[in-house]
Each structure stands twice: as structure tokens, then as C-alpha cells.
């Protein structure tokens, strides 16, 4: 009986909690991609760099606070810096909208042309980040690291498996729930949100109803900048900030958006968790788990790991390919907000 509890705790500790955290970060990222696709109708490859820029801004402001001895006690100082980082990310996205994307929108360029331009934007932001903060690993988490430590948990429950709960994990989940609630409330209940859905649904008819396209585009970048900054900061807080990783994050984020149905906000969220759970479940070594559950004679000798963790991006890539082959419109029918 104890063994079953141990097995459950093991999975919670190594699969459920990390996947929920990682999934939340992907969901916020995918939501940003989906907003751009739903309203501006192009695949924004620079989104990963917007996230990276957001995290970098947050680090710079955090450093400033730390050097002035301003902190939040148990909570990371980064939370205090986050509003400033959001503001700077929004300004960056509005600048790129004004000087790059709006040109193609007015020209009514093909979506693939704008997507290519966004790759250019990706390189530019990437270079800015490396000039400002460099390519190195940066840990900017401070405050209390664990809410429950593995050892504490063992002592409390008497189980031989420990369960650790990092505060960044809890913060990630809470902020994600709060932002998702805000975004869906905005889209469903407010006049501006509804006008954005209308614009995404039928642009010409939205014009005929007097909806102002520049205002819709402006608000889209506002939301996208916020989502990107928060997603990037949460990822950096949780796993440490390294500019290079954000380049790689674009793949699982796009996979999440497409799996859920690109252009559909609920799809983006579901897709984020789908990708996160698949990546972690497929690359986890189940040897210990089976050890708890199976009688000694049946104990596995190998690691029972489907794929090495080095291949975790291959998982999202494979899912992406399967979805595109089997159900190109995604789990939820994509296209409109």
C-alpha cells in the first residue's frame, strides 16, 4: 500500500508539477502567438525573442531593486520588477509594429511575407539582447526557494519518496490562472474584446460596423507584449535565464498553438499543457515507478525511458507533424479568436 503512495508521489514530483509549470509557461507563450495569428494573420516567429526581451528587462529592473535593497521578502524581487518589464516589452512590440509590421499590413502582404519579416525581427531582438545582457546563464531568483522541501515532506508523511514544491512553480501557476482569466473575460465580456473577436472573424464586416482597425492592432500588441513578457519571465525565474534557450522555445510554443488550433485562445492553453505533459512524460525514466508497483521478480532492468531528455524538442516536433497530417485545424477549430 505504501508503495502505491510512493509511486504517486514520485509521479507528482517528477511529472505532474513540472509539467503543469512548464505547460503554463507554454500556454502563455502560445496565447501570444495565437493573438497575433488571429488578428494580424501571420505566424510571429519573433515571439520567443519578445519573451526573452521581457525576461531581460525584468532582470535589469530586478538588479536595480536589489542594489537599492528593495525586495519582497519571501517572494522574488522579480515580481516587483515585472510591471516595469511588461511596460518595456509593450513599448518594444509597439515600436516593431510601427516600423516593421504595420508596413506589411497596410501593403496587405501575404502572411508568409510578414512571417519572414518576423524572422528578421527575431534576429534583431536577439542581437539587442546579447549586446545588453550577454549570452551567459543568469539566475535572478531570490526570496524563499522552496515551499515544501523534499526532506520536509518525507519527515511529514513518512514516505520514502520526497515531494518538492518550488515557489516559482506556485507563482507560475497562479499568475497564469490570473492572466488567462483576465484574457478570457476581456474577450468575452468587454466591448473592445468583442470587437477584437469580430475583427478576427471577419475583417471587412468589422470595418463596415465601424470597428477601428488601428485600435484593434494596438490593443493586440498590448496584450501580446504583456503575455510574452510574463511568459518569458516565469520561464527564466523557474529554469534560469539564458538567451539561447528562448530561440529553442519557439518550437514547443508553436507546436502548442497549432495543436490546440492556431487562432483559438482555448486551444492555445490546452495545446500548451498537451505539449508540456507529452514532453515530460515521454522523456521520464519510469524505472523507479515500476519498482514500487511491480513484484520484485518483474522489476525492470532498464531505465524504461522512451526517449532521452536531449530529444525533448523532438517530441513537440513529432506531435506537430502528426497534428498537421491528421487534423490540420488543431484540437479546437482554429482561425478566429
Amino acid at each position, binding site marked *: 500500500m505504501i508503495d502505491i503512495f510512493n509511486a504517486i508521489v514520485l509521479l507528482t514530483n517528477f511529472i505532474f508539477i513540472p509539467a503543469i509549470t512548464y505547460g503554463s509557461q507554454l500556454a502563455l507563450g502560445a496565447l501570444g502567438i495565437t493573438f497575433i495569428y488571429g488578428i494580424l494573420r501571420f505566424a510571429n516567429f519573433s515571439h520567443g525573442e519578445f519573451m526573452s526581451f521581457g525576461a531581460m528587462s525584468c532582470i535589469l529592473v530586478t538588479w536595480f531593486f536589489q542594489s537599492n535593497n528593495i525586495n519582497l521578502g519571501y517572494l522574488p524581487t522579480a515580481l516587483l520588477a515585472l510591471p516595469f518589464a511588461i511596460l518595456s516589452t509593450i513599448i518594444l512590440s509597439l515600436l516593431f509594429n510601427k516600423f516593421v509590421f504595420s508596413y506589411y499590413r497596410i501593403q496587405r502582404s501575404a502572411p508568409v511575407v510578414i512571417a519572414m519579416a518576423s524572422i528578421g525581427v527575431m534576429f534583431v531582438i536577439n542581437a539587442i539582447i546579447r549586446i545588453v545582457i550577454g549570452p551567459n546563464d543568469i539566475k535572478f531568483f531570490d526570496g524563499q526557494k522552496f515551499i515544501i522541501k523534499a526532506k520536509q515532506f518525507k519527515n511529514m508523511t513518512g514516505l520514502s519518496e520526497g515531494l518538492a514544491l518550488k515557489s516559482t512553480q506556485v507563482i507560475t501557476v497562479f499568475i497564469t490562472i490570473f492572466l488567462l482569466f483576465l484574457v478570457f473575460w476581456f474577450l468575452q465580456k468587454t466591448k473592445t474584446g*468583442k470587437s477584437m473577436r*469580430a475583427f478576427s*472573424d*471577419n475583417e*471587412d464586416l*468589422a*470595418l*463596415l*460596423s*465601424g470597428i477601428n482597425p488601428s485600435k484593434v492592432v494596438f490593443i493586440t500588441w498590448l496584450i501580446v507584449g504583456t503575455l510574452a513578457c510574463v511568459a518569458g519571465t516565469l520561464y527564466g525565474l523557474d529554469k534560469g535565464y539564458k538567451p539561447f534557450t528562448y530561440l529553442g522555445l519557439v518550437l514547443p510554443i508553436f507546436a502548442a498553438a497549432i495543436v490546440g488550433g492556431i487562432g483559438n485562445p482555448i486551444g492555445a492553453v490546452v495545446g500548451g499543457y498537451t505539449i508540456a505533459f507529452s514532453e515530460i512524460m515521454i522523456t521520464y525514466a519510469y524505472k523507479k515507478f515500476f519498482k514500487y508497483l511491480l513484484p520484485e521478480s518483474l522489476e525492470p532492468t532498464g531505465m524504461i525511458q522512451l526517449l532521452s531528455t536531449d530529444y525533448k524538442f523532438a517530441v513537440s516536433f513529432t506531435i506537430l507533424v502528426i497534428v498537421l497530417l491528421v487534423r490540420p485545424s488543431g484540437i479546437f477549430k482554429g482561425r478566429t479568436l
Partner: protein
Amino acid sequence: MSSLVGKSLTAGYGGADIINNISLIINEGEIAVIVGPNGAGKSTVMKSLLGMLSLTEGTVFFSNKEITKMLPQDRVKLGIAFVPQNQNVFTGMTVEENLEMGGFLRQDNIFETIEEIYHLFPVLKEKRHQHVGELSGGQRQQVAFGRALMTKPKILMLDEPTAGVSPIVMDELFSRIIEVGKTGVGILMVEQNAKQALAIADRGYVLVNGKNNREGTGKDLLNNPEVRKSFLGG
């Protein structure tokens, strides 16, 4: 009294001109109908009146003010509403949200107008929380019609409002159009069902190859042997 006037309109989609030297007038409270064979440029006339394509020649007046260079959105603000033939609803939104979007520009209470529209089309009230994508063709046309009415237009342009709906729904739609016309809205319609449309029209225009072929009251055109022979099937 508001009126929408197009004077010697000439326009096309970049290539050759589709319509040539067309003049027409729609007064508040009147129903005007454009009939003519396929490809005569009927829809193009409407789009050029709304400014959705630029004129190579001609002028558009609204209540004696020239609006030839005005953006479509700004014409909507003046009180000109347009219901396109296709994609004239927000399919991913509910009936009520569609109507709300129609009243997007209005600052006053739009819910009274929504109630009026539900009164005009009772079936929409029943389905108010349903997505428009799930409705039948006739019901969608009613939503499209309702969305345009939400702007409280002075002039309403309908591009083939009865395309692809059953004869029963068509009669129903025509009687609603008359009802709306009686409230003082000027209506300009493009119609395939020329006979029925001319029967309710105060003013009719026959378009052939992008040119004004004939104009007159609906009754005159209906009784004109030449028009009957060429467009109304004898």
C-alpha cells in the same frame, strides 16, 4: 431629408471599368432596386457608393454633401449601412454579439434597438445566444440585416438579401424589408428575383453591361414589355 446620390459613376477593380457612367438616387423612405443580368455590375455599383473601390470618374453625394473621397468606415458613421452578399455575419459570435457589433459606434443605449430587431425577427430572439455559424441561411440573412439596422442607418444597401434562401423565407424577408422601408429608411437592393423586387420598389434601375439601361418606378419597369421580355421571362 437624407438621400444618397451617385452621379455618372465609373469604376472597376483595377482592370477595365465594370460600371460606366451610372447615375442613381435613393431617398429616405424609398425602396430602390437594381436589376439586371449576371455580371452587369450591380454589386459594383453598391461597393462604389460605399467607397469600397475607388471611382475613376463620378461623384457620390449624401444629403447634398460630397463624400466621394470618404473612407467606407466614415460613410457608415454618416448613416449608410451595407449588407454584403457573402460573409455578412460574424460566424464565430452569437446572434446577440453580432447585433452588438452592429451598434459598435453608438454611444446611446443599443439594447432598445436590439429589442426592436428581435421584434422584427422573432426567431433571432429565440437563438440569441447561439453561434451564427450554426444557423440556417435564412436566419443568417436576418442576422446580417439586423446587424446593419443596428447602426440606425438612413440609407441601407442590401446586396442580394434573398440569395440562396427558400421561397417562403424570401417572401418573409421581402415583407420585412418593406416594413423597414416604412420606418423611413431608404433601401437600395440588388436582386436576382427581379419580379418580386420590382413589385415592391418605388424606383427601379435596369443595368446591362455596366450601363444604365432603363429606369423608372417599379411598376413601370414591370409593365414595360421590353424589360419583361429580356429580364423577367415574358
